[in-house]
């Protein structure tokens, strides 16, 4: 990056440290923090949407829809995360390619499954074999967001389902007495009031989601834990910056990052909780009223 870094083995001290910390590999490491933050920024709303859909489905009076909503939450919550991240993603990837294969290569005569091999026509590869490395990474990242959204959506569905049922019946009855339709009651009374009951559960999910991001590596996305392990491992003279095992320091760095991140999350969630409790007929709302008085 700097001219002084041209020959890393000749420099030492502060210059060496500066060059070391700005090597191409370290820049990749710093970008991986952005990757993780981006994953969270995309996954959280996606999971919430999945959860919301799941909760509404579970509450449906039409049995098949209700079973679908409840089944989704029950099955995904019951399958260990690691199994989900190892097998579901491969299955999803193959399902996408299989579907594309049926569309773009209808004349293909070879079997797709050849023993252990999964072989679609080259035009059906997603992304195409000729695509740049960026698209391969973006595709992997997209699969990761989708998988995280499904897994965390199932938990969110359960939380939101419970929260919807926790809104006092009297509130809904009053709305009905005013002549509001079912949809209006849902939109104007139930949903605005349920958040206060959902927030503790959702904030737990958010914290778990933050800590689950290292699972990204299982999906082929190089995350901060991968880079910390790769950079920290002892390096021989084959590398430009040989050093002994420094993994401890990199992991301490990650520890600090995660602690700061979860601390900031806690502060934001506490404020959100205070705001949602405001004026509510709950113990939290009562405590706020007394504190103000």
């Amino acid at each position, binding site marked *: 990056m700097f001219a002084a870094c041209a020959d890393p083995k000749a420099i030492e001290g502060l210059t060496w440290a500066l060059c070391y910390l700005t090597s191409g*590999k370290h820049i990749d490491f710093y970008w991986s923090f952005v990757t993780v933050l981006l994953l969270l920024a995309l996954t959280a709303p996606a999971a919430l949407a999945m959860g919301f859909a799941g909760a509404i489905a579970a509450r449906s009076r039409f049995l098949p829809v209700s079973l679908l909503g409840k089944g989704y939450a029950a099955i995904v919550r019951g399958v260990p995360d690691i199994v989900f991240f190892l097998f579901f993603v491969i299955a999803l990837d*193959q399902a996408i390619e299989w579907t594309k294969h049926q569309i773009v290569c209808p004349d293909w005569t070879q079997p797709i499954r050849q023993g252990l091999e999964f072989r679609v026509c080259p035009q059906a590869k997603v992304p195409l074999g000729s695509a740049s490395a960026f698209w391969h990474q973006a595709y992997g990242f997209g699969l990761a967001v989708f998988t995280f959204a499904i897994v965390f959506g199932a938990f969110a569905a359960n939380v939101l389902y419970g929260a919807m049922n926790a809104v006092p019946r009297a509130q809904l009855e009053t709305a009905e007495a005013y002549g509001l339709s079912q949809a209006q009651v849902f939109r104007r009374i139930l949903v605005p009031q349920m958040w206060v009951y959902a927030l503790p559960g959702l904030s737990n999910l958010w914290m778990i989601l933050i800590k689950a991001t290292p699972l990204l590596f299982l999906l082929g996305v190089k995350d901060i834990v991968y880079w910390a392990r790769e950079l920290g*491992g002892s390096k021989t003279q084959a590398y430009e910056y040989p050093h002994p095992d420094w993994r401890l320091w990199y992991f301490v760095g990650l520890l600090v990052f995660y602690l700061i991140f979860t601390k900031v999350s806690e502060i934001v969630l506490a404020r959100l909780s205070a705001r949602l409790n405001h004026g509510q007929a709950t113990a939290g709302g009562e405590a706020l009223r007394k504190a103000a008085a």
Partner: protein
Amino acid sequence: MNRHLTDQKGDLRMKKLLLATALVAVTGAAYAQDVVRLGTEGAYPPFNFINDAGEVAGFERDVGDELCKRAGLTCEWVTNEWDSIIPNLQSGNYDVIIAGMSITDERDEVIDFSQNYFPPAASAYVALSADADLKGVVAAQVSTIQAGYVAESGATLLEFATPDETIAAVRNGEAVAVFADKDFLAPIVAESGGELMFVGEEVQLGGGVGLGLRESDTELKEKFNAAIQSMKDDGSLNALIEKHFGPEAAKF
């Protein structure tokens, strides 16, 4: 000339399309590949590692690039963790494994190998002291021939996902010794300042290191076999071995 081309354009496009369809339909697996994706581990110096610029480097980077040049292929490097390197080849995430993978009968049952581009080499034990008990806890990387050997040797096998962790396990006392390719261990022992040393007998394992390919990719395999042979014949492969492994390394 120009006009002629314009006149022919539509016809040409049609022909191209027909040709492409015919190629796909007739030859099946042996299609014309645009880009060959080379999958490596990126954690096994000097065979393959991620250099400080964040790129794949090492012996296999040089060999792979040269082989692709000779075979007239456009290649792209991909890293994948060792543990799932064979399943990801089979599901088509990349087309070739070039990751210091020794040719063994077990692996040959699920994938195909090119001829070797690195001769059968010795595996060795490394420990903190010369009197280390090689029947005690011995570290090796998961799914390697060395791990298989340790399991059968009567020692307690301790497996790790990456080669680096096997060395760390010996340094922190988790294992009494590590068993791995001697060519991987040699620079680590040399640079440890006397902390680590080779112990016990060297063992010859496997049939050398070859490229791993899907069993259905016979045409690609033949291209690489020819390219490897040409590198063996003109001595450029030996030169690369010497460049990365030193003058004492086994050559062809």
